[in-house]
């Protein structure tokens, strides 16, 4: 079973929920995937101090213009990333925008003036937490395609399942609906969408839900920070209109930020707090899926 926790909107509590679910479901041998390579945080919930393994991923390409460039400017118009600029009488590449597609090299009249070389896209890290194996990734800042790192992470987790090191996979997706979230949802069995009762969160939830439908993945809703916006029923209406079951309503409580500060999963830091009790109910539902 592969379950993805997603939301569209950032900061609604995906990692808090993921951390607590994995803690509660420890006996089910779950591999954790932190699928937000641009803001990886799950290791902070589990207070990972040392990585067991760390490796560089060279999956990106970058262009380099050398001194034989005659500054003709033909490359300017073909760069869809708008990564080429002129300085000191030479064309140059903004490395934080370039995706190394090679369009500039294809039109360059000077043989060898533009080189395309493989570059670091980021790092994949592995840790053993007291709740099971964790794979995390970090995109090198300014690089494209963090989704490729997520795909790589999921392959690692799937191998753990094959080798018997884990039985199930829980993926903590990134905010948004782009490449990282698509890579997270691809091949998953179920999605838990987390939202808070605000119009912005509902709007982003609808986008994330649209993606789950695109990939035909069964989606469930968890309302976090329940009660911060009394009288608002947008999420309930969404649930009714789309037939998305609400499997939890986690109340807002001061124990949540405190647990983040303590770097412990909420259900361990404050097991009797109202949000922890609600997450335990959600865990029982998830248990039924495993």
């Amino acid at each position, binding site marked *: 079973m592969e379950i993805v926790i997603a939301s569209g909107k*950032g900061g609604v509590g995906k990692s808090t929920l993921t951390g607590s679910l994995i803690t509660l479901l420890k006996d089910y041998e779950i591999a954790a995937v932190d699928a937000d390579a641009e*803001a990886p945080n799950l290791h902070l919930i589990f207070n990972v101090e040392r990585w067991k393994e760390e490796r560089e991923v060279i999956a990106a390409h970058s262009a380099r213009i050398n001194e034989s460039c005659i500054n003709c400017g033909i490359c300017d118009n073909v760069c*869809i990333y*708008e990564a080429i600029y002129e300085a000191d009488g030479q064309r140059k590449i903004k490395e934080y925008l370039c995706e190394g597609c*090679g369009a500039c090299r294809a039109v360059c009249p000077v043989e060898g003036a533009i080189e395309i070389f493989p570059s670091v896209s980021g790092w994949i890290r592995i840790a053993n937490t007291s709740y099971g194996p964790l794979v995390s990734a970090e995109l090198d800042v300014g690089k494209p395609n*963090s989704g490729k790192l997520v795909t790589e992470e999921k392959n690692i987790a799937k191998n753990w399942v094959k080798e018997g090191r884990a039985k199930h996979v829980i993926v903590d997706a990134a*905010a*948004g609906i*782009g490449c990282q979230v698509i890579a997270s949802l691809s091949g998953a069995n179920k999605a838990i969408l987390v939202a808070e009762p*605000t119009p912005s969160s509902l709007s982003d939830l609808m986008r994330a839900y649209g993606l789950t439908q695109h990939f035909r993945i069964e989606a469930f809703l968890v309302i976090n920070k329940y009660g911060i916006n009394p009288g608002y029923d947008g999420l309930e209406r969404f649930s009714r209109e789309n037939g998305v079951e609400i499997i939890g309503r986690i109340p807002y409580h001061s124990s949540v930020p405190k647990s983040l500060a303590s770097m412990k999963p909420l259900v361990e830091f404050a097991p009797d707090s109202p949000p922890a009790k609600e997450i335990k109910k959600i865990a029982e539902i998830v248990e039924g899926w495993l």
Partner: protein
Amino acid sequence: MKITVTGGKGGTGKSTVATNLAIALSKKYHVVLVDADVECPDDHILLSTNLENEEKVYLFKPKFDYSKCTKCELCIENCSENALLKFKEGYPLLMPSLCSGCRTCQLVCPEEGAILDDRRLVGYTYHTKINDNLELVTGKLEEGEERSYPTVLAARRRAMSISADIHLFDTMPGTGNHVAAAIEDSRVVITVTEPTPLGVHDLEMILKLLKKLNLKAWVVINRSDLSEISHDEIVEKYNAEIIAEIPMMDEIMKSYVSGIPVVEMYPDSRASQIFANIVKRIEEVM
């Protein structure tokens, strides 16, 4: 002048800060607010407006005329996304979901007319008038599309084609090149964070990106009374500066959910005063 609000972590309050600054700045200046969070654009919701003047964003995609193809395979060799496969009989075949639209296949093809122009819809941009002095340009990624970068660029182009005193960009969370494209060339970069280990960690990631872009960061600590956790070490390490702390306030929450920026709904509140102070800081560098 270009100002950008960013932050690494999601949900720290980027859009709240951006919309309030946009309203506050528009009292004196002509402002274009650019919602570059194309995966989940929300600024129009915080401003209670509907998106108008839709334009579609397309990316190139190759279309093969096999009658002209000589099976030289140059297109396949030069596709950095490995989106072209050798099909039966040796013709190239496109895997559309992998294509980045870079056009390199067409540029390297030696046969005139063997690779023709086709396109795919990847997103939308909108231009909405909020009031006489404030316009909103929004980018919105097509659902199911992986690549947000082209839509960010399209929104940026549309926004920059409007003349204004201030272009205020609100970025996506994260640190990839789609965020860099929204940030580059800013005079002022405001990073919004929160006092949790997650906020501190992700602030460091965005400060690393800003260092690469050679930009100095202003830091706004939102929900500053959430915990005792300090950003000082990171802020010092990257030579950034904390310019404001916004404690948790009912007024902010109420204005957030009612779609009226706090500087309009509660102009005399402490929150509005904090935004007025940030405006003063911005004016000092204008």
